[in-house]
């Protein structure tokens, strides 16, 4: 890190690695995510000392130990709340929350939705593996129905969360989805998350090869990926399939799959607009169980982005404005109060 550019040392992914041995199971999707984060960090223009990674509990939450930045491995479900207090008081820091589906949607669900509605300018990386890994294989709030796990020998009966829809319901200002097995896309989504001013909610499909191997295979494997995934690009029609031969058309409010040149032309296809609040809700609801017949492809990319004032900015503005109009607090005046009396 000897080269200096714009006053900042030019760093590489290596500068973000620590001397700690990475302890995830061999083959775990977390490795790829770590590699992409380490690649993106040197490119975002933030000094290393101003980056903080906060995690909760779970396999993914070991993440801070492997990043040579500031970091805190907190307690189960609370990374979002810890990050809220940090960002409220240190708005200049780039705060990243690394969390899992159990951590952020089950035990920490409450803090997740409140962070989103307050719109702290932080980045949530939700590693969704649809299973509890660290506790050795119980179903999670994103596990598909009927899943047989250690705690559900007869199949799970819980209806799973659609994390993006939950984020939308909490008025998140940036909602995106990516996957561990698509490094380029993941890097792009990480960069977009960083660039968004406000709370960024990035769900990353992450394979747990020990307890839930292949959960996302249908979206990640070469043979099925083209037909099962829909990659969203701003201003571009929603096309998918091996030769981009299929597309999504809106039939009223209902998305339907059409074949280009067969039952529709490219002009009939829904053109993606990340800033469209209403259409984003439809897109986010394209969440069919891929086991069902005639299911819709699963979208990846940025569903929605909007601008809204950040909690920490308004909080600090209130402080600054009070000081500007009333002057800095005077402790003696405060302690004295309005009415005093003398005893001689």
């Amino acid at each position, binding site marked *: 890190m000897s080269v200096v550019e714009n006053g900042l040392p030019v760093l590489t992914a290596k500068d973000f690695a*620590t001397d*700690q041995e990475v302890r995830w199971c061999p083959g775990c999707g977390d490795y790829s995510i770590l590699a992409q984060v380490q690649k993106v960090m040197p490119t975002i223009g933030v*000094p*290393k*000392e*101003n980056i*903080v990674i*906060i995690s909760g*509990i779970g396999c993914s939450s070991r993440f*801070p*130990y492997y*990043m*040579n*930045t*500031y*970091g*805190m*491995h*907190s*307690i189960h479900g*609370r990374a979002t*709340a*810890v*990050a*809220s*207090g*940090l*960002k*409220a*008081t*240190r708005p*200049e*820091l780039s705060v990243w929350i690394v969390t899992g589906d159990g951590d952020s949607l089950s035990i920490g669900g*409450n*803090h997740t939705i*409140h962070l989103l509605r307050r719109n702290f300018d932080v980045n949530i990386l939700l590693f969704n593996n649809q299973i509890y890994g660290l506790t050795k294989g119980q179903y999670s709030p994103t596990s598909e129905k009927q899943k047989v796990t250690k705690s559900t020998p007869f199949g799970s009966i819980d209806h799973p969360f659609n994390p993006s829809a939950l984020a939308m319901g909490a008025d998140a200002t940036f909602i995106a989805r990516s996957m561990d097995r698509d490094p380029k896309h993941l890097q792009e989504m990480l960069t977009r998350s960083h660039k968004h001013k406000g709370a960024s909610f990035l769900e990353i499909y992450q394979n747990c090869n020990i307890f839930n191997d292949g959960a996302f295979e249908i979206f990640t494997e070469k043979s099925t990926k083209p037909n099962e995934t829909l990659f969203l690009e701003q201003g571009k029609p929603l096309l998918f399939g091996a030769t981009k031969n299929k597309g999504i058309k809106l039939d009223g409010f209902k998305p339907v799959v059409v074949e280009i040149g067969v039952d529709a032309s490219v002009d009939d296809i829904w053109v993606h607009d990340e800033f469209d609040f209403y259409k984003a809700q439809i897109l986010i609801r394209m969440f069919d169980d891929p086991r069902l017949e005639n299911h819709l492809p699963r979208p990846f990319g940025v569903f929605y982005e909007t601008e809204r004032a950040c909690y920490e900015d308004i*909080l*600090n503005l*209130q*402080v600054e404005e*009070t*000081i500007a109009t*009333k*002057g*800095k*607090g005077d*402790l*003696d005046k*405060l*302690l*004295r*109060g309005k*009415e*005093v*009396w*003398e*005893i*001689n």
Partner: protein
Amino acid sequence: MEKQDVLLSDVVIKFAGDSGDGMQLTGTQFTNNTALLGLDLATFPDFPAEIRAPQGTLPGVSGFQLHFSSDRVFTPGDMCDVLVAMNAAALKANLAFLKKGGRIIANIDGFDAKNLRLANYIDGINPLENGSLDSYDVIKIDVTKLTRETLKDFPELGMKEKDRAKNMFVLGFLYWMYNRSLDSTINYLEEKFGKKENILASNIKVLQAGYNYGDTTETFTTRYKVEKARMPAGTYRSIMGNQALAYGLIAASEKSGLPLFLGSYPITPASDILHELSRHKAFGVRTFQAEDEIAAITSAIGASYGGSLGVTTTSGPGMALKSEAMGLAVMLEIPLVIIDVQRGGPSTGLPTKTEQSDLLQAYYGRNGECPMPVIAAKTPSDCFNAVFEAVRISLQHMTPVIFLSDGYIANGAEPWRFPKSEDLQPIHVKFKTDLEEDEHKFLPYKRDEKLVRPWAIPGTPGLEHRIGGIEKQNITGNVSYDPENHQLMVNIREKKVENIADYIPLQTLDSGPEKGKVLVLGWGSTYGAIESAARQLQWEGHAVSHAHLRYLRPFPKNLGEILNNFETILVPEINNGQLIKIIRDKYLVDAKAYNKVKGVPIAKGELVEEIRKYL
């Protein structure tokens, strides 16, 4: 008839009425008026947990007790001299606490058939009429009628609005009776209703009418006067516990140079600290009303991690929810102040009543070996200094600290000889900013002679490091499952807290001889009752002493010696015996307990009797 002034030294008034009758306001107004005259005083507001409990019923009674004197005042008084009863329920609920021969000021409109029934007076028997109060001095006033009469020239006010001014009539009457000026309340009303001219004018008019009623009614021939108290010279103000606590935090923030961050979730009786602090943005205070108790403490941990003074406030049930996060702060070894304004428990318990039953929770209520310093305030104004100390210890020893107050302290008021800012000691805090010459890598758990680790905050180049709730290797801070290291770290965390005993003052006696028969050992809000009971017995010639603990963990180093100087150690607590367990365990003394868990403070009288048993 000629009116005469009688000099008194000590008065206890209880204002009691329906929770909608404005008794808290009346009591507070009379208190401020009393304080401004330089009298010593103590108050005890006692109200239902419901915002509007059923009108006219016993559970709906709201009370405010004020004790003022030309001598030192330590408690709001066991029994009152004057009982203001706005309705039958108020009389019934409080008569037992009126001294024999005491005075009752009754609003006869509150003793109609309906009110008597609601107060469970059997067959509508009116205690004001049936001679049952003959041993008291009863003043009957039709406050409602007189108030309406006074406001007959206010046609734009409805009956409900007129009746709302009733408490001003009573207040005016008491101001007359105790020779007071109306100014403090007029000032208050002007500030509160300045823009609503009608309401302002009507309230002042009723206040004056109450005063004039005393002045012109011939049957009232005596007025009372209480002289200024003999208190240490200086400038005083009136202060409530939660307010003093908020000011103490602001002062500590100023004196440490760290901005104050409060993460809090509303809970009785701690919410007023959040309310107070949220007003002081000019001091750089940032308050965060979190989504729950857990977010309240963990957001404060986040703020602390970033170099702010992180604080969280709560009461018992919230403490329980915060325990896991307290453990995290212990592992992280970062500063944090957790304030527990105790109330009756367990579970929701008695939200508006006082209790000291969270001490063991504060001491032991976490998973693992999880030592934390514990500090307690003893009176409303003491919250200021005690919380300042809590912050000092937290910042200088890199540890979360638990601060205990309770409902009685939180809502009580007393005169306070407030300090000057320049007289407050600075709290020195040093962030680590660079590597030393012999350091190649930042070692976050390398300790100084106090066993305190360095505080390096995000944004500091070259000191990037990771901390977390998993056991840390000493010195490096790396994750470690090594058995030897865990034993070492458990010992270090314990020792680090014990070492604080070297940095706090030695225990002193609040009163009484250094050696003697009985040492009454207390903590928290029992201070006033213990001190006044001990003083009475000392005055009678008994070798009774009082020691009150501010530092509960660690204890001051000389506490053991002090305990050895007495034949009996008596520990009164508003719980089932908590401090006493710790004292017995640590000092192996056969201390005696006096416990009461009724949601009310311990009274001086009962304590005097208890101490006598050991004389």
